[in-house]
């Protein structure tokens, strides 16, 4: 696959992911710069973007507009196709591969983990509720939507960090002045930097939450093969490295996981290869039958 060595596949995949992250940041800067040079091929930001006639609308913002105005335009309807198909096939890869907020926090955590080694390790060691019941996730999303519907206020737009960052990039480059929405992003970033945990992406962000609604049995997932896993109990490199503090070995990995593949990469490095990306559900049923056998024997 990709002409890469099998054993370094996932670390190569991570290299590609980091490249795409930088590329999407440059892309967000390039859109307004091209407009300054009177090239209107790509217009918009991460709330909604038009690439040469192809409309793409962020599902969370679309859902909010539909809720508030009780009307659907054809552009919104067709604009949902690309993000929904992407989510149905690969999961929330928008978050892990493209979202500028995730890219920034990933860099920031890498820096702060080096600066405050002890605190970072301490924060990472807490094992309580790695994969909480998804009811928590869904109720936060429902609360945001209901609140914005009751107040008739576009709350989702103000809570969408990727949207705010991308629109402010365009505002600044096109000379429209920087908006105070950026403060919202700064507050979230500093909050997360203080507690060393990515609670925003994990629980609150409406963009990711709406994207994770589109999940079927065959959607890309991190599969765990218990039989091959040789990490005993407490030392779990996969859950240690997870940016969202999830454990790929436990249930309820989804809807939280955004398929960044870091756990698979570290698992591959450790040599066991118990984790891998899979498109089908087969492994899980096999696991369940195995565990049933184990319990019954």
């Amino acid at each position, binding site marked *: 696959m990709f002409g890469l060595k099998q054993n370094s596949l996932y670390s190569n995949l991570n290299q590609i992911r980091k490249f795409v992250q930088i590329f999407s940041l440059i892309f967000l800067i390039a859109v307004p710069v091209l407009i300054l040079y009177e090239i*209107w091929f790509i217009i918009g930001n991460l709330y909604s973007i038009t690439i040469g006639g192809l409309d793409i609308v962020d599902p969370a913002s679309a859902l909010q507009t539909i809720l*508030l105005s009780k009307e659907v335009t054809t552009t919104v309807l067709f604009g949902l196709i690309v993000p929904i198909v992407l989510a149905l096939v690969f999961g929330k890869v928008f978050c892990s591969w493209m979202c500028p907020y995730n890219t920034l926090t990933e860099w920031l955590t890498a820096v702060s983990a080096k600066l405050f080694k002890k605190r970072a390790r301490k924060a990472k060691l807490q094992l309580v509720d790695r994969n909480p019941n998804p009811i928590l996730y869904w109720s936060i999303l429902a609360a945001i939507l209901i609140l914005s519907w009751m107040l008739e206020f576009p709350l989702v737009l103000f809570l969408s960090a990727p949207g705010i960052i991308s629109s402010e990039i365009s505002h600044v480059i096109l000379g*429209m002045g920087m908006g105070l929405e950026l403060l919202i992003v700064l507050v979230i970033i500093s909050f997360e930097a203080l507690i060393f945990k990515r609670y925003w992406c994990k629980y609150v962000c409406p963009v990711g939450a709406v994207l994770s609604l589109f999940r079927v049995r065959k959607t890309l997932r991190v599969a765990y093969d218990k039989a091959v896993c040789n990490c005993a109990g407490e030392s779990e490199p996969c859950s240690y490295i997870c940016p969202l503090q999830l454990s790929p070995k436990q249930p309820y990995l989804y809807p939280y996981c955004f398929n960044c593949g870091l756990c698979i990469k570290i698992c591959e490095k450790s040599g066991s290869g118990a984790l891998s990306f899979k498109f089908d559900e087969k492994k899980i049923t096999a696991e369940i039958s195995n565990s049933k056998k184990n319990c019954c024997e």
Partner: protein
Amino acid sequence: MVSFIIEFVRDLISGKSPLRPPGAFPEKEFLKKCIKCNKCAQICPYFSIQMAHIEYGKSMGTPLIFPREVPCYVCMKCPPVCPTGALKNDVVNKEDVRMGIAVINEETCLPYIGIICRACFENCPIFREAIILEDEMYPKVIKEKCIGCGICEKVCPIEGSAIIIESAHNI
């Protein structure tokens, strides 16, 4: 300082209704539909469309026009690019636009104090229909025809402009 805060809070609550780009829904409906995708501002070749900041309270991040700085030249490029229809996509003729209505201040307007001036009359894009000259001298706005683009407000030689656009959402 205190008065500034009171003013600021009042602005936040009242939600000023600024001049919106052509084809905009009435203010309340507009705020429900706009998803701040910035496309209208980006497609505008004259950079007429600016972004609302904190002084507009809950409508911050939405598009608006300050006609005295750069008016709308009604090129009609922005309504079709709006994905959510906050700017009505089917508004394609400049005659159908209703952004606001120009109001003449007869105390400062030059012809009304005896000096010949035809700046607004001659620059109006709905020429001879939206602004007419009464007695070949006094400019008058025909409310039914005025689209509220603000070109008259921009070209008025009087300091602070003697003709000002009243946003359609305030009327």
